[in-house]
C-alpha cells in the first residue's frame, strides 16, 4: 500500500522539567485499525493522547496524519484536520440538553464554522443530531440536561461529540472508566460498531483487559513513557514484559483507574490489592 498510514508517530519525546513522560515513541496505524493502549497509571498513555491531539506540545519528534505533519498544532486545528478525541472525564456542556450539545457540535463542525451564522436548530442539523443520537443509542435522553445524565450516557455523548467532525483518527481516553460494569460492554459495542462502519482509525486507552481483548486488532503497551509491546492482543497479553509491568501476575480484576499524572510515578507491578 502506497498510501501514507492514517497516523504515524516518529521518535516522539516529552519531558517535564527533567521527568520523561514519553521516550522515543514510534507508532504506525493504518485506516480502520482499532488499537488498544494499555499501561499502568503514569506510564504515559494520556500524555501520548494529549500530544497527538495538540493539548501538549512534544519536546521532540514528529506526528504525521496521512503523511501530513501535524506536530504541535492546536487542538482545534487537529479537529479540523480529522484527529479528534474523547475525554476520561466527559467534557460536555452541562447546562444544555443532549440534543443541544450535539447541535452546537454540529454547527461548529459543519462548513468550517459557516453554519454558525444561522440557527443551530436548522432542520438538517436537527436531523443529523437525531441520527447520531440513534447511532449512539442516547436518543431516549435527547431532552435531558447533561448534568442529569448517568456516567455511561454522558460518556456516549462525549464520544458522539468527538465524532461530529467526521474524524479519520479518533482517540478515546478511557471510554469506559467511571461506568458501571453492566454498561461497559454495551458502550463499547455501540461505539466500535458506529466507528467501524465509517472506517475510522481508533486508538483507545483502557485498563480493562477483557475489553481490550474483545475489541482491538492491536495492543500498545506503555511503561515509563516507552512502548514495550506492539502486537495483536493474543500475543501482547502473553508477552512477559506486559505481564510484568502492566497486567500483573494474577490477572487481578480491574481497579477503578485514577487520573494520569504528568510525573512518571514509581512503577511496580499492579498489586493484587
Amino acid at each position, binding site marked *: 500500500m502506497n498510501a501514507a498510514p492514517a497516523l504515524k508517530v516518529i521518535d516522539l519525546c516529552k519531558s517535564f522539567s527533567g521527568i520523561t513522560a514519553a521516550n522515543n515513541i514510534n507508532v504506525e496505524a493504518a485506516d480502520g485499525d482499532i488499537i488498544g493502549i494499555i499501561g499502568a497509571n503514569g506510564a504515559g498513555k494520556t500524555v501520548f493522547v494529549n500530544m497527538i*491531539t495538540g493539548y501538549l506540545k512534544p519536546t521532540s519528534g514528529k506526528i504525521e496524519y496521512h503523511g501530513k505533519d501535524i506536530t504541535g498544532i*492546536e*487542538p*482545534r486545528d487537529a*479537529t*479540523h484536520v480529522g484527529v*479528534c*478525541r474523547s475525554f476520561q472525564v466527559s*467534557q*460536555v*456542556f*452541562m*447546562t*444544555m440538553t443532549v440534543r*443541544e450539545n450535539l*447541535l*452546537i*457540535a454540529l*454547527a*461548529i*463542525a459543519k462548513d*468550517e*464554522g459557516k*453554519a*454558525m*451564522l*444561522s*440557527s*443551530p436548530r436548522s432542520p438538517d442539523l436537527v436531523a443529523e443530531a437525531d441520527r447520531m443520537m440513534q447511532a449512539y443509542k442516547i436518543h431516549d435522553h435527547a431532552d435531558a440536561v447533561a448534568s442529569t445524565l448517568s456516567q455511561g450516557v454522558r460518556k456516549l455523548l462525549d464520544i458522539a*461529540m*468527538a465524532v*461530529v*467532525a467526521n474524524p479519520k483518527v479518533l482517540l478515546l481516553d478511557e471510554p469506559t472508566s467511571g461506568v458501571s460494569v453492566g454498561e461497559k460492554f454495551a458502550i463499547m459495542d455501540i461505539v466500535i460498531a458506529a466507528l467501524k462502519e465509517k472506517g475510522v482509525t481508533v486508538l483507545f486507552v483502557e485498563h480493562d483487559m477483557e475489553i481490550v481483548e474483545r475489541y482491538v486488532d492491536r495492543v500498545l503497551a506503555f511503561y515509563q513513557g516507552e512502548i514495550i509491546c506492539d502486537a495483536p492482543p493474543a500475543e501482547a497479553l502473553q508477552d512477559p514484559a506486559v505481564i510484568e509491568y502492566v497486567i500483573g501476575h494474577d490477572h487481578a480484576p480491574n481497579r477503578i483507574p485514577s487520573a494520569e499524572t504528568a510525573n512518571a510515578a514509581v512503577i511496580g507491578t499492579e498489586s493484587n490489592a
Partner: protein
Amino acid sequence: MLQILRSDKTVRWTLFGFFVLAVTGNFMPTWVQNNLMFGMARGLAVLGLMVLWRTGLISFGHALYFGIGAYAVALADKHFGISDIFLRLFLAMGTAGFVGLCLGFILRKYRSIFFAMLSLAFSMVLYGVLVKVEALGSTDGFSVSATSILGWVPESKYTLFCAIIVASAVSACMVQYYLKTGLGALTTAIRDNELRVEYLGYSVAQAIHFKYVISAALAGASGAMMAMALGQVDPDSMVNWTVSGELVFITVMAGPGSVIAPFIGGVVFEFLRTYAFELAPHAWQLIVGGTLLAIIFFLPMGLWSLLERIWVRKGSSS
C-alpha cells in the same frame, strides 16, 4: 435573518413594547421622560454586558467605553461642531468599538477575577487621563450642544427620546438574532466548557473577542446617548469605576434571561434613584448595595426571572 426575527416572540414583544412607549412618551411628564431616556440609554451598555455575562465574563471596566462614547460626542461637538445624531453615534460606536478591538486582543486571554481587574485597570487609565488633563475638561467636564437630525434641530427632548427608543429596540432585536445563531449559542457553551469548544474546532479566544467588541460598541452608543440626553459629560459620572459598578449592578439586577431585561433594569434603576433621592438623599447607595446583595442571595437570575415566574403562573392558571 428576517425569518428568525419574524417568528421570535421576544422580538415581537420588544417592538410592540417600545412602540407603545414611544407613543405614550409624548404625554408623559418631563421627569418621567428623562428617567426613561437615561434608563434605556444605560440599558444599551447593560445589553452588551449581558452578552459577556452569558459567556461567563464580568467586566469591571465598561465605563471605559461608556466614557469613550460620551466624550467622543462631546469632543466632536466642541472641536468640530458635530451635532447630527447619526454622525455622533457613528463616531461614538466606532471609537469605542475600535478601542474594544485593540484591548480585546489582550483581554480575551483572561478569565474571572483577572479579566475583571484588567478591564478595571484600563478604564481607570482613561479616568486618570480625563481627570487631570485640562484640555479634556478635567473634573468639570464640559457641555454638549443640542442634537440635530439630518440638519433639523428639534425643540423638545421628545425626538431624542424616540431616537433612544429606536436605538434600544434595534439593538435588542439584533442581539436577539445574534443569540439565536450558532455564534450566540457559543456564549453558554463557552461558559459551560471552554475546553470542549476548542476541541470541537472553534477558537474560544476569537469568540470572546468578538463578543467583547460588540459589548464595547454598545457601551459606546450608551455613553453617547447619555451625553446627548444629559447635555454634559464629566469623568466622575461617566468613566469612574463607580460607573462600571453601576452598570454591573444593573446587569445582575436585570438578569441574563432576555434582551429586554437590560432595558427594564436600566429604567428600574433610574426610577429607584429618583425616588431614593427624594425619600432619603443619603441612603441611595445603601439601597443599591442592599438590593445588589438581595439579588445575589435570593434572586440570582435577576428581576427577569421573577417576571418569567409570574408569566408562567398566569399562563398556567388561565
